[in-house]
């Protein structure tokens, strides 16, 4: 209607398609109502004017106006409240022409002069500023970036080709290529390195851009602190006005509803304003336990890339690079070849092995033989491939977990606790050994149907309860003594920006589950 009548000078006039307030509100509605609902009801609404007393919306038809007012008025009010600072009431005008002739021609002449305020901020800045290296370093560090994690010292290999390419593309053109870019892999394979690398490279190309690297845990702590100090506005400003948000350990969001909601809005705002978001997680978005569907779907919008374990050549290349970086000339190429033949774990494990071998080479006067190396890295060799877990060991470990005697597992007692322990043991035997169903069954003195049932039951419980799942994972890890990111890899973790959160959560969950 504002096209037809002279604008009211007291009100700010908005050009709807480019209006940031309205698009923020729509985004807000999207988050609370879902995309489909939002599209169905609001796609043809326009913001006519907005002040703290009154917001006027143009509805594409009376029925739309009535139904929206009846069903979504509170949503609208709170969305405007949030983005406008206050909203007394909402009034609906009806564009009577909309129903019959939808193609209300956009007058290009009008488009330019009715645009005001925030809209002009969309003009891209192409200023290139020369900034000294120190200044860049300072900015990078204050953005949470770690100095050593740069593109220059990332060793790409066949395992990370796609991730590497995507990282570079995003650093070159943030917000334009993959939104969001989502890395996932087992720990210690370079997700964090790439996140930081994107940050540094992006900073180098655009020194003035606001870059923010945080782990999800840090995000959570900031959020909690902001709530306590009643400083949510500052918190949101910090996160929602970033040009590039690098969020590590996204899986930490799992099961934290309030945090997810907050991040959801952050995500929407950034995506809406075409700011780049890069996420890293130890599993694909869809597998993060208790992550809201709307976040999962958003995380899947852009590009999800998995980083695999490095192959032999890549492992060697990584270690050679590390050797040079850490200045360990006593480690020869041959030694590195020996190491990577035996150690197949993640990069942190590799680094640990390198350190041990370097130590061995320094300490002894004799030349380092392959046997020495084998000995030095014996306990960090990839266990999954070198060790076969035994049935008895599984029974024992499970029994320990449930605080039971091993013979109870083999016995006939059928209390819930014992039955669960028995089922879990069967499940683990079935998944960790090569035994056939019948063999598993006979190891437990049951028939194979019982085993099938047990496996099914445990799988179901894992799906239903993240706590149970993590406790199962923990037992599994203990059994295969797999590359737990704890003990031997201290050195690789020297940068210390990553907490022990994952493990901590798992343990806590375990206590709840079994105590």
């Amino acid at each position, binding site marked *: 209607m504002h096209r037809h009548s002279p604008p009211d000078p007291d009100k700010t006039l908005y050009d709807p398609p480019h209006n940031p307030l309205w698009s923020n509100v729509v985004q807000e509605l999207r988050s609370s109502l879902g995309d489909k*609902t939002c599209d169905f009801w609001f796609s043809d609404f326009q913001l006519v004017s907005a002040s703290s007393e009154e917001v006027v919306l143009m509805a594409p038809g009376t029925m739309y106006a009535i139904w929206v007012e009846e069903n979504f008025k509170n949503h609208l009010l709170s969305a405007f409240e949030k983005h406008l600072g206050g909203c007394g009431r909402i009034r609906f005008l009806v564009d009577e022409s909309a129903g019959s002739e939808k193609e209300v021609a956009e007058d290009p002449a009008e488009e330019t002069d009715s645009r005001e305020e925030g809209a002009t901020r969309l003009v891209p800045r192409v200023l290139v500023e020369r900034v000294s290296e120190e200044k860049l370093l300072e900015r990078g560090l204050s953005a949470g970036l770690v100095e050593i994690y740069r593109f220059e010292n990332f060793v790409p290999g066949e395992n990370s080709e796609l991730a590497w390419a995507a990282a570079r593309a995003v650093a070159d053109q943030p917000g334009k290529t993959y939104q969001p870019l989502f890395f996932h892999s087992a720990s210690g394979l370079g997700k964090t390195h790439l996140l930081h690398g994107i940050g540094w490279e992006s900073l180098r190309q655009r020194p003035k851009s606001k870059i923010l690297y945080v782990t999800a845990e840090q995000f959570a702590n900031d959020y909690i602190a902001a709530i306590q100090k009643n400083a949510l506005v500052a918190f949101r400003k910090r996160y929602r006005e970033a040009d590039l948000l690098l969020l590590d350990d996204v899986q930490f969001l799992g099961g934290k509803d309030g945090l997810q909601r907050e991040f959801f809005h952050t995500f929407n705002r950034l995506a809406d304003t075409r700011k780049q978001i890069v996420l890293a997680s130890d599993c694909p978005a869809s597998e993060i336990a208790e992550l809201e569907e709307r976040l999962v779907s958003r995380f899947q919008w852009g590009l999800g890339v998995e980083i695999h374990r490095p192959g032999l050549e890549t492992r060697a290349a990584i270690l050679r690079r590390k050797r040079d970086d850490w200045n360990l000339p006593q480690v020869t190429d041959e030694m590195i070849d020996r190491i990577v033949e035996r150690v197949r774990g993640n990069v942190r494990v590799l680094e640990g092995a390198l350190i041990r071998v370097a130590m061995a080479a320094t300490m002894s006067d004799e030349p380092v033989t392959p046997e020495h190396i084998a000995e030095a890295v014996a306990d960090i060799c990839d266990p999954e491939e070198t060790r076969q877990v035994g049935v008895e060991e599984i029974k024992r470990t499970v029994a320990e977990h449930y605080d039971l005697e091993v013979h109870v597992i083999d016995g006939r007692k059928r209390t819930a606790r014992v039955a669960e322990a028995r089922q879990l043991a069967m499940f683990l035997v079935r998944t960790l050994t090569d035994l056939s169903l019948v063999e598993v069954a006979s190891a437990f003195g049951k028939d194979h149907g019982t085993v099938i049932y047990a496996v099914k039951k445990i799988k179901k419980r894992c799906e239903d309860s993240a706590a149970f799942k993590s406790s199962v994972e923990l037992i599994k890890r203990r059994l295969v003594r797999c590359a737990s990111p704890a003990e031997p890899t201290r050195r690789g973790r020297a940068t210390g920006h990553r907490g022990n959160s994952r493990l901590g959560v798992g343990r806590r969950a375990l206590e709840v589950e079994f105590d």
Partner: protein
Amino acid sequence: MKFQIEKEVFQDGLNQVQHVVSTRTTLPILSNVLIQADELGLELSTTDLDVTITKRIPAKVAKPGATTLPARRLAGIVRELPAADIDFEVNADNAATVRSGPSFFKILGLPASEFPAIGEFGEAKEFTIDQKLLRDALRKTSYAISTDETRYVLNGVNCLIGEGMLTLVATDGRRLAMVEQDLEFPAGNETGVIIPTKAVNELQRLLDVSGELKVAISDNQASFELNGSLLVTKLIEGNYPNFRQVIPSQANHRVTVEREVLLGAVRRVSLLVNEKTNSIKFAFDDNRLAISANSPEIGEAEESIDVRYDGPRLVVAFNPEFVMAPLRNLDQDEVFIDLIDESSPGVIKIDEPFLYVIMPMRVAG
């Protein structure tokens, strides 16, 4: 004026007209029923200035005349009278004496001349339609009429005639009920009017399951003539908004369910409806529908029923009253629920030209 009348007949007649009388009115005459006696019998009329109902009943009239008497009070007296016949006499001061067996009543009335006349009925379109058809159509739609007086165009049933179709629509902004009945009207009768709630209610009371009724529609009034009664109503002025805007064009999933089974289950579960959200949950899953309510302060209820559904699990929350309303007013054994997703409008259909759009409530979180 003097007449003798059967109690049953008088009672029925008064019952049909007395609902129009408003209980709290500033004009005392509007509380009264106009009684006109001529050689053919009695004519009883009530009005609230918007809706007027006139009912003709047989009586032995000894002396023609007219008066008005308090409608509710008269109806109450007649209902309680002990004998089968009533003798009625009204003097010049509009005081009526009622005798029936051993009972005697004297009731003070107001002169008939004060009773408001029905407004001039302009040029009208006239046609006849089947009573049952209109009755069913009104029954299937009228419960969705808005009671919000600020949206006066929605305070009635939108009645569209044309293109071989009689379309009735009612909505309150949260649900919408529509009947689209194939019906050939004489050419030139195309029209669209909004019949106000009160007229709809009264009309439903008058309509029978057989026979026809005569409808006349002018610019601002409509009249319905049937079974010896005449209902005249003002129409709601204004344009009914384009209701097709809110009808979802296509659904992804269809649930087939037995109407009474669903109604019963919803009714039971709704006993524990969450007072805050006023909603109950419908979880559709592989030929099962689990209906549940959960109120933190009260408790919870769940009922699971068989349905035909082979889509993915869908959980939708609805206001139970909004689900029950159409179910109560349909006759079909089976209803279909068409769904798009958790937050899009759901549509209840039957294998006749009817549809009911219902907005899901948002489940918290």
